[in-house]
């Protein structure tokens, strides 16, 4: 179910009215959770099993982690080792966990030895997970429980998103090294003949769930005792499939008690929804047609068309993703929930670092807080900071998908960020280069990097780059209307960062703008497909 479909426009009023009816009762959170599961299950009901399992495991992992914490002072290290040898724990809830681990281990053995073909991988994972659980329970180790959560979450991500990439590359390597080994495709590892499909939004809710476990582990957050609240936090339908990736510290407390819904929340939410709808239907979808035409057959188009399609893609992905986020934030706001800002006019950034503080903010702050800073951040000098930055960008690139194109895209951004950081530290650059020029440079650099993000393969990307640079610039046939819209949107964004912003805040401007958007949507909205970021 997509936000810009008629189905959602029927679904949401029902959910909203039900929500208002249950708002002051104990059914408020269950209602939201049910709505979220219906929303998510509409793609594929089997996805629900995955999200429910993942939610339950992280919920209990944190509970068991808490049990370890409370028992630490009571039990010495030697007693814990003794417990490990006996495979039992002195804490009751951990004994339950250990038993679950034992049952899991038995199941994994059974599945591995007697299960259907293809179930061995699942059995193997279950075995590792069960053993880690038994170890964590016996040792009362918070770190081991964190490991259980990480193994579980990352193995799902690895399997559904990256398995094919690794298997394909490994098989190529085996051939080159002369080994007579070929690993089977990831799809053949699905148990019971289930279809191998990437669950929509898996990267988003997995990261959201992991942030809860990590925050608890690092002592930044108390445990959420209500399972339904936690499950709703993981599956909250406005941001479930494409973010923003919310932090438990921000969203979980909002489920604690019924939020006050002011009229302003509803009008602001409706405004955000309208803007998002316009961005998606009237802008992103239109640009996508041109991009698909050119990027679909890059060898048939000249440099001008490829360059313009690249710029068009830069705007397409922005309108597509920020449009989704606007709608998500608008829907949540109408119900009284505040989601974090995810985009803040990124193409007006003056450096790459600035760009990442404006683009997909929820993801970049996630990587900053859980990867870059724990690695060492800026604390160990510039050289190490750049190394950590490179690692962070690499992981961020891999988060988007398993392909060399994403990796190159991430590394380009890493290099760009380091370069602009260095440049900004130079007085001549910082003080003398006009902001407009910096913005143009950043936009062009980001657009160049998008080539690798959008191209199907690395060779396609190289072909595009080489044709932009070397082929004849024939008529690009980019619609004039499209060019006009891009210029208009750029001008509007630019206006927002100047003192002329006040013009756009005038009541008549807003009313006419909203009417224009509604009428335009009726005329020009094309029936576009899913959002780009759903694939992540």
């Amino acid at each position, binding site marked *: 179910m997509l936000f810009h*479909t*008629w*189905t959602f426009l*029927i679904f949401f009023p029902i959910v909203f009215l039900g929500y208002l009816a249950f708002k002051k009762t104990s059914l408020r959170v269950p209602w939201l959770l049910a709505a979220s599961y219906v929303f998510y299950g509409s793609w594929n009901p089997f996805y629900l099993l995955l999200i429910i399992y993942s939610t339950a495991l992280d919920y209990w992992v944190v509970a068991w982690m808490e049990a370890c*914490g409370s028992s*630490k*002072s009571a039990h010495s290290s030697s007693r814990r080792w003794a417990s490990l040898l006996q495979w039992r724990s002195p804490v009751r809830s951990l004994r339950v966990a250990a038993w679950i681990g034992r049952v899991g281990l038995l199941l994994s053995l059974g599945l591995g030895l007697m299960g259907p073909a293809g179930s061995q991988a699942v059995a193997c994972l279950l075995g590792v997970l069960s053993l880690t659980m038994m170890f964590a329970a016996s040792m009362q180790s*918070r770190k081991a429980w964190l490991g259980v959560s990480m193994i579980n979450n990352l193995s799902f991500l690895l399997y559904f998103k990256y398995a094919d990439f690794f298997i394909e590359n490994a098989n190529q390597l085996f051939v080159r090294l002369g080994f007579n080994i070929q690993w089977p495709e990831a799809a053949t590892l699905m148990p019971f003949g289930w279809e191998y499909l990437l669950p929509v939004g898996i990267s988003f809710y997995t990261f959201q769930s992991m942030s809860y476990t990590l925050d608890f582990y690092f*002592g*930044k*957050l*108390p*445990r959420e005792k209500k399972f339904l609240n936690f499950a709703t936090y993981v599956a909250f339908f406005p941001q479930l499939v494409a973010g923003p990736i919310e*932090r438990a*510290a*921000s969203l979980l407390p909002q489920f604690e008690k019924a939020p006050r819904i002011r*009229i*302003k929340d509803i*009008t*602001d939410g*409706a*405004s*955000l929804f309208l*803007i998002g709808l316009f961005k998606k239907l009237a802008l992103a*979808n*239109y640009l996508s*047609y041109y991009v698909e*035409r050119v990027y679909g057959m890059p060898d*048939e188009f000249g440099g001008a068309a490829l360059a313009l399609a690249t710029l068009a893609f830069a705007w397409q992905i922005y309108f597509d993703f920020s449009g989704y986020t*606007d709608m998500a934030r608008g829907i949540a706001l109408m119900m009284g929930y*505040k989601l*974090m*800002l995810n*985009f*803040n*006019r990124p193409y007006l950034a003056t450096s790459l670092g600035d760009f990442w503080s404006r683009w997909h903010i929820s993801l970049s*702050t996630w990587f900053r807080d859980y990867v870059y800073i724990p690695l060492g951040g800026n604390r160990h000098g510039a050289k190490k900071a750049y190394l950590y930055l490179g690692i962070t960008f690499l992981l961020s690139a891999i988060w988007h998908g398993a392909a060399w194109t994403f990796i190159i895209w991430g590394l380009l951004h890493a290099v760009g960020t380091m370069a602009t950081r260095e440049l900004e530290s130079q007085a001549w650059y910082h003080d003398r280069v006009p902001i407009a020029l910096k913005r143009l440079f950043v936009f062009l650099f980001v657009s160049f990097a998008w080539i690798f993000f959008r191209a199907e393969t690395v060779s396609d990307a190289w072909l595009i780059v080489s044709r932009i640079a070397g082929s004849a610039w024939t008529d690009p*046939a*980019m*619609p*004039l*209307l499209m060019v006009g819209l891009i210029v208009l949107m750029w001008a509007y964004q630019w206006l*927002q960062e100047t003192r002329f*912003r006040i013009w*756009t*805040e005038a*009541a008549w401007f*807003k*009313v*006419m*703008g*909203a*009417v224009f958007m*509604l*009428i335009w949507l*009726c*005329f*020009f*909205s*094309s029936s576009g497909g899913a959002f780009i970021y759903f694939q992540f």
Partner: protein
Amino acid sequence: MKQEISKPSQSQRGSVRKSQKALPHAFLLSVPQWIGVLAVFLALVLFLPTAWEAWESFDPELNYRVPYETSQDYWQYERHLKQRTQENDIFFVGDSVVWGEYVTADATWSAFLNEQAAGEYQFVNLALNGLYPLALEGLVRHYGSDLRHGKVMLHCNLLWMSSPSADLSQSKEQVFNHPTLVPQFRVSIPSYRATLDTRLGRAIGHQWSFLAWVRHLQIQYWEQKDPYAWTLADNGKYPPAYPNSYTMPWSVVDGRLISEPDMDPDRGMQSTRHKPWSDEGVGTQRFDWVPLDDSLQWQAFQRLCQVLQDRGNDLIVVLGPFNQHIMTVDNRAKFKAIENEVKQWLESRSIVYSAPKLLNSSLYGDASHPLTQGYRQLAESLWNDLDFKAWLSR
């Protein structure tokens, strides 16, 4: 090592608050502003199509029919209907048999009836190409409200019950004309596999005439595309050219409606398609008739009669004449049985009907569509039919 469990850190709370406060859009509207937006939008939605009718000239001739290229322009269909509500107007509603598949607009069944009537009555061709009872029902329900209380001739074409495929009752998915007009939720049509969202969109689209008007513009000016797709359209050749890239969509909106071509290569006496069915070398066929009780098309036809009766229309059903020459001899008995069942049902509902006689084989272009001379004979035979005369004059 004791682990401290703490509340969210200061910096975390700070960043959350900051992100919640930061709204990059200036476009957050207040209540009065939203009221203003809705008022202006509603005014435009109501006013624009009406103003358009005044601006875009449309003065249909007596034998006007909605051109083939604009068959899905239901707003134009409704507009035609609105302009033809004089006292002596007789509305002839039906599928391509009434519309005139192989003939020009002045050689249709209604055109020859106009010749016979010589101004006493005006027979209005209210058919669309590509219709069938399931779609016809939708057309009349959603775009035919101006038919209310008028005299309506409804054509019944048994072709639609001649096979599960034509009846849309086979389970295999089919692509067919006018999918927006078929019942989206009320009736289960096995051959129709649209998604829930498509069905909802189609159902909602019929309730909002503004969207039908937008579709009218798309059909009349932008080659049946939305304006975005129109600016991107290629010329269908290889290597492709993109003729509309540097044209703004609104610059081609000149108020001139698509009309029937002067020399239609597909229709009229000079057309290569205008020839008896047997000239194609097609032999007789065996139709896999669908029993009426199971036929979706027949049920739709029954509902359509009910809708027209409920709206106070003075209704006559014109039955066939189906080209029985095309059938194998043993197949005709089944056809006759079905035809009789239809007649019995019409009589049971006190619906007047007329069943013109079978034409000569050479006057049919296929199983159900007559050629020019066939329409002339049908019009003459109907005009001389006493029941029809009685219905006309009542």
